[in-house]
């Protein structure tokens, strides 16, 4: 199932060659559903800025980004792909820095631009290496070439670096938690939902092009997935800012996706078609699912932030009485991202778990051990994500408002903002309760990556258990409604008084008594303090009758603080030395260019 559109192009080596295959299909579906819903949401969201800020330019770049995304995903030619990739990067940059009056936003945008260009550098190297060997710029032609293991390994590493930066794989993720909170919420949704998925798309495309990769690549993918997943969710748990937390959660989900890709590659390395398709298909389904629920969560977060005018979770609370519809939709997203049954997150995690267990049972020792590691990591991620999202939902929507000053105006946001969220939430439930359609699409994508046809394995092995899951979900729903009716029946003649919360005998309980998000996460963050840079200021009680005290805690990114910051500051030092030795005249630089030109000519004459 491939549709190719071909047209000549004046650019050297370039051709307008677009291809729609099962792999692009699933990404294209994610892009279209998210671009439309985030766009609709944006109409409502940007109303606030109309007249005050250049909204028109924002819309232009939004549409440009949508176009670039589509071209990146369907491009069948290296030059076209890289061109679209650049357009995507630049358009995203302008969308991120919409609120450019804030210094943090400008910095985040700049960081994003630098990080992605480091990635693009690797991609240039990789694609030119591939084209040089295969002698063509067309993906189909490159895919027909066979590469030696060393070259294949090099290409794989470059791809992992280049696409990994875009996807936010640990430890190349440092731009991500800065860019997401800085951007307007519908842009964060788009960034997290599809823009970083282009990195995953790239890795998938490379897996498709390369056919057979050396064995270690599968392990590298698996371990990168495990590390990104677990660390991503741990960092998320330590955050107090809603959108930053969601951004770290994207890293976790990218980890799960890469874990799935690792399982698939393991299966391909061991000639196990079923495992291969399960792994790749599960990963692709998670790509789609994550776009849905992460988009939903970011849109919800945007509504919350616009209402409360702060991103600090510890200043919120009780919002479900203020915005009942948003709170329900956010709950759907939260349940889905935790991978709980009835929602779509469970379906893709189920498939990846299924693949990991298949690998565990059928693979020889190193593979089985890697699968065991993957299972444990995925289980841990699930439990930590649950802790993380109960924290978010509990502190933001439940309890009482922690806000100082006047209370927020009750009322859900406009329909422009709620309808896109409804669409996304509806899709989450739809895949959660009827995974057949999307499951088949994802599996055909998986088959396509692995160059397999469906006759070599029986997909019912995983589809039949899935229908068991759905059966369980329906039984659960039936039981739930039965119990609700039973409660109503039992309470029918009794009066149901409404009173204050039982506060263990305390009187005059203020909302500030409530557990904050930091205190809720403290036990876990403290447990893994060796891995996180968690800092705590104040809060020491040193006299018998302590007076006023303040305590604040924060979790810092270890990759950023102890890896990139020292590295870059050293690099900055070196460049400063070089800079000082330069004579600051333009003519010198022109002379360098002139000398290089002479050198090139001489080299050509040789």
């Amino acid at each position: 199932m491939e549709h190719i559109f071909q047209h000549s192009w004046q650019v050297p080596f370039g051709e307008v060659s677009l291809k729609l295959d099962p792999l692009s299909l699933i990404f294209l579906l994610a892009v279209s559903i998210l671009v439309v819903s985030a766009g609709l949401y944006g109409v409502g969201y940007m109303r606030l800025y109309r007249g005050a800020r250049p909204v028109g330019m924002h819309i232009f770049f939004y549409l440009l980004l949508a176009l670039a995304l589509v071209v990146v995903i369907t491009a069948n030619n290296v030059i076209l792909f890289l061109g679209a990739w650049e357009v995507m990067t630049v358009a995203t940059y302008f969308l991120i820095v919409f609120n450019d009056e804030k210094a943090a936003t400008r910095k985040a945008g700049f960081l994003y631009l630098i990080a992605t260009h480091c990635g693009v550098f690797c991609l240039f190297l990789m694609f030119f290496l591939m084209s040089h060997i295969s002698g063509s710029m067309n993906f189909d032609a490159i895919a027909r070439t066979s590469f030696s293991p060393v070259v294949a390994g090099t290409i794989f590493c470059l791809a992992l670096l280049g696409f990994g930066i875009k996807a936010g794989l640990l430890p190349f993720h440092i731009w991500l938690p800065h860019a997401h909170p800085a951007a307007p919420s519908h842009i964060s949704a788009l960034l997290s939902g599809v823009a970083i998925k282009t990195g995953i798309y790239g890795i998938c495309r490379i897996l498709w092009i390369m056919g057979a990769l050396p064995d270690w690549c599968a392990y590298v993918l698996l371990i990168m997935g495990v590390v990104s997943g677990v660390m991503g969710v741990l960092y998320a748990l330590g955050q107090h800012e809603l959108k930053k937390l969601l951004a770290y959660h994207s890293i976790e989900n990218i980890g799960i996706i890469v874990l799935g890709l690792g399982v698939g590659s393991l299966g391909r390395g061991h000639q196990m078609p079923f495992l291969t398709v399960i792994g790749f298909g599960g990963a692709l389904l998670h790509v789609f699912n994550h776009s849905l629920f992460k988009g939903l969560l970011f849109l919800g977060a945007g509504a919350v932030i616009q209402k409360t005018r702060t991103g600090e979770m510890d200043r919120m609370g009780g919002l479900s009485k203020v915005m009942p519809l948003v709170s329900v939709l956010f709950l759907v997203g939260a349940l889905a991202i935790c991978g709980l049954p009835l929602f779509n997150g469970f379906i893709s995690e189920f498939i990846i778990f299924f693949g990991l267990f298949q690998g565990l049972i059928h693979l020889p020792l190193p593979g089985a051990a890697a699968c065991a590691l993957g299972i444990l990591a995925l289980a841990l991620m699930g439990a930590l994500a649950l802790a993380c999202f109960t924290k978010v939902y509990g502190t933001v929507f439940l309890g009482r408002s922690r806000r100082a000053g006047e209370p927020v105006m009750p009322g859900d946001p406009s329909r422009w903002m709620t309808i896109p969220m409804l669409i996304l939430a509806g899709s989450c439930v739809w895949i959660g309760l009827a995974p057949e359609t999307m499951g088949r699409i994802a599996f055909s994508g998986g088959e396509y990556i692995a160059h397999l046809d469906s006759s070599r394995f029986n997909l019912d092995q995983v589809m039949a258990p899935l229908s068991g899951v759905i059966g369980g979900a329906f039984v659960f729903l039936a039981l739930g409604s039965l119990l609700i009716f039973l409660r109503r029946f039992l309470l029918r003649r009794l009066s149901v008084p409404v009173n204050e919360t039982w506060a263990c005998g305390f009187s005059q309980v203020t909302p500030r008594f409530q557990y904050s998000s930091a205190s809720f996460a403290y036990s876990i963050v403290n447990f893994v303090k060796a891995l996180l840079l968690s800092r705590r200021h104040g809060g020491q009680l040193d006299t018998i009758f302590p007076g006023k005290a303040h305590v604040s805690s924060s979790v810092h990114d270890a990759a950023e603080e102890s890896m990139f910051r020292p590295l870059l500051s050293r690099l900055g030092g070196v460049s400063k030395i070089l800079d000082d030795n330069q004579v600051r005249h333009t003519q010198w630089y022109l002379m360098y260019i002139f000398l290089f030109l002479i050198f090139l000519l001489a080299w050509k004459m040789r």
Partner: protein
Amino acid sequence: MVSDVYLFIFNISISVENEMMMLILIILHWLIALLLSPFLLGVISKVKAFFAGRVGPSLFQPYYDLSKLFQKSAVYSQTTTWVFRAAPVVALASALLLVLVIPLGGLDAPLKFQGDIFLVAYILALARFFMIAASFDTGFSMEAMGASREAFFACLSELVLFMNFITLALLTRSISLSQMIGADSPLSWSHLGPTLLLVVASLFVVLLAENCRIPIDDPDTHLELTMIHEVMILDHSGVDLAYMTYAAALKFLIFATVLVPILSGWTGVFIKDMSIYITGLLGLAIVVGIVESSMARLRLNRVRNLLLIAFVLAFFGFIVTMWRG
């Protein structure tokens, strides 16, 4: 008609004579679980009373408590929302769903498929999500304090649970709970004694942790600062509390039901299996009672070490399994 529903829901077609069987099986599962689970709690408190030198409450006290709660009205806090009311329903519904996934005594599990272990783990997580959310919903710190601990210990106990699932999957070459611990399970103590010992020991710790028993949590304490489960349900009352209590009792039964067949094995004769199963449950309840009477509750920051040890036990079991090939 039932078979149509079954076909629609489970995508499995069953013959007409089987459909009544299936329905009876489901009802039997619920009946046994609902009738038996409070009794186990009664046994535990009886054992504890015995060790404390008291007569203790009647073995049927949990039933009296439950029936009392079912007759009472509920009080809701003005802070709470529908999430607070949903939590007991979700907790009990998920416990009842889990009852269908495990084989009870000689009875086959009505809901079994490859990968039902994930459903077990994640349905437990679903109930936990709502419990934690409900404790935030009360708007007071004590409940959320318990919830924070619950979330943390759940991370560790989930790891232990999955480590054991890995070992059992390797041993039985299946990822269905029914095949892992059900009647056709290939586990046997004569071959796998040491590994199973490790599995049972770590699962026992998980049982204690998930059901909030001593040494992880004290179900009888009245000091809100130190509790986990009890403090989370502090604000629930009447019918809601009955749901919560019943769900907790069922959860104990579910974990015990996973543990007992590994210990006892299967004979293949229904009556025998059932009596072994019930004896095993009672025995496990007595053991839990003895543990609770002979140990003190651990300091909260040491509970994680206990769970880590349980994890290492399970991990050791996994290594031995891999070593044996």
